[in-house]
């Protein structure tokens, strides 16, 4: 069981896997009987958005707050007008998918005061050792600091989402543990979870603390 706050925010380097984890975390909270909303505030990515899971969200009874322009044929970095409900309507557990890097995190800035005031949130740094610009602890921490500066909020813990897409093996994940540990040591942030794809979960269950099973994966073409 993972503890959760009323608001969970996922941010990190471009392509670190935030959207995928957002979808899985929202489902996880829903399965515990919570009222859940997912907010897509990604203003960077043109395709592969939380909105791809719109049908699933509907099916599970999860409220999706997403720009009407997400996945459309226009390129507006617009935020959904009902986004303020994530800080206004405290009856929901809100999961927020922040856009990649510092430029994605700017969009978060306008909600930060309310989030800090309420003080019932977790701000999770998603990391992947196998992304070429965040392959070591120092470059990852550099991206982390840029994000914190852009949105004026400090991370509270780490999600180790190190993976190589379809080529991910148990060893891929095991090899990333020292990297995640080094980031944790240098930043003082705890590692909240290490993610693993469903088909590999049983092989690693019990070997890694805080193993979070990703049952839903966006499939490439």
């Amino acid at each position: 069981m993972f503890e959760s706050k009323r608001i969970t925010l996922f941010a990190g380097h471009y392509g670190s896997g935030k959207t995928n984890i957002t979808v899985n975390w929202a489902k996880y909270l829903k399965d515990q009987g919570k009222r859940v909303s997912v907010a897509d505030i990604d203003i960077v990515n043109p395709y592969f958005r939380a909105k791809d899971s719109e049908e699933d969200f509907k099916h599970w009874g999860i409220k999706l707050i997403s720009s009407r322009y997400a996945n459309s044929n226009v390129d507006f970095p617009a935020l959904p007008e009902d986004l303020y409900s994530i800080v206004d309507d405290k009856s929901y557990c809100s999961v927020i998918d922040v856009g990649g890097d510092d430029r994605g995190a700017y969009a978060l800035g306008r909600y930060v005061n309310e989030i800090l005031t309420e003080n019932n949130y977790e701000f999770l740094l998603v990391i992947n050792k196998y992304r070429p610009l965040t392959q070591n602890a120092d470059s990852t921490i550099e991206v982390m600091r840029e994000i914190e500066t852009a949105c004026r909020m400090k991370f509270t813990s780490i999600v180790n989402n190190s993976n190589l897409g379809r080529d991910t093996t148990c060893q891929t994940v095991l090899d990333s543990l020292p990297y995640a540990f080094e980031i944790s040591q240098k930043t003082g942030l705890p590692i909240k979870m290490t993610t693993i794809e469903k088909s590999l979960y049983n092989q690693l269950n019990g070997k890694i603390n805080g193993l979070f099973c990703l049952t839903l994966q966006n499939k490439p073409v």
Partner: protein
Amino acid sequence: MSEKVLMKGNEAIAEAAIRSGCRYYLGYPITPQTEIAAYMAKRMPKIGGTFLQAESEISAINMVYGVACSGKRCMTSSSSPGISLKCEGLSYLAACDLPSVIVNVQRGGPGLGGIQPSQSDYFQATKGSGHGDFRMIVLAPSSVQEMADLTSLAFDLADKHRMPSMILADGTIGQMMEPVELSDTMHETHYEKPWACTGTNLKREHNIINSLILKPEILEQLNIERYKKYEVVEKEEVRYEEFMMDDAEICIVAFGIASRVSKSAIVEARKQGIKVGLIRPITLWPFPSEPIKAAADKVKSFISVELSMGQLIYDVQLAEECRKPVYLCSRVGGMIVSPDYVLNKIVEVNNLGGEN
């Protein structure tokens, strides 16, 4: 030795360009290829290279023109509407026989169209990327790995044949993430460039790079010479992949993302006992006419699967000399053919049995 990383297609292009010795990236942002510019902006200053966001696409391609005159490896990238703006520059690059790499991560058109993927710039890339008689080498990646590999190849072919080469990708391949092996052997192959404007040091006559030719007799001769070079390229540089073609009775021709979807459909069709295979052009120019011509002796019909209203299909018909019917299977406007959509077409064509 090589390292495996997880990359977006656009990032793979940028990293491969850097590893292939490109130190000049001149660009202008446009979805769905902006990651190339963003990646270059982060990396170039750290390795002593130049990232420059020009004030427009036209400006960027003319900066490429300038850098290419010095013989240095340089690149620009854009998406469909932006490539239209670069077309004048492409003609000048070709006219001056300047090696350079241009990336088009296609989106739906015409006009501003939309930001979702497309392959409707096939004609533009292979036939009409500017005024005058000229060609570009056009490479069509179908995976993130090929985004890297073909970018490296594009630099080598451009230098080897002294001509612009284009990566013709699409939004899906640009945006999707896949594991990639970045080879340590990817590096800048050295080509002699005695034509480059790098300063004479008072030891030689100065080089002139110019596309204005005052005498028509000379301009004609230059065009003829350039087309002799194109003949060599057509002979030496054709690249393609065959998939399940040995016993095929239906031959799909498709490139890029359409070829990936087609492969899934072919595997399904084979389960139903339909003998179908694929010829995937990797070079769109020079076009793999020979294998398609050879296939026409064996198959009953062809299907051109493409994300356009029917552009590739003309080259298929030319290559097989209209001996067998060629059917079109396409979606446009940012929509992508699904494996089921292609499978339905295969079944339909199979039922026709090669009759027109």
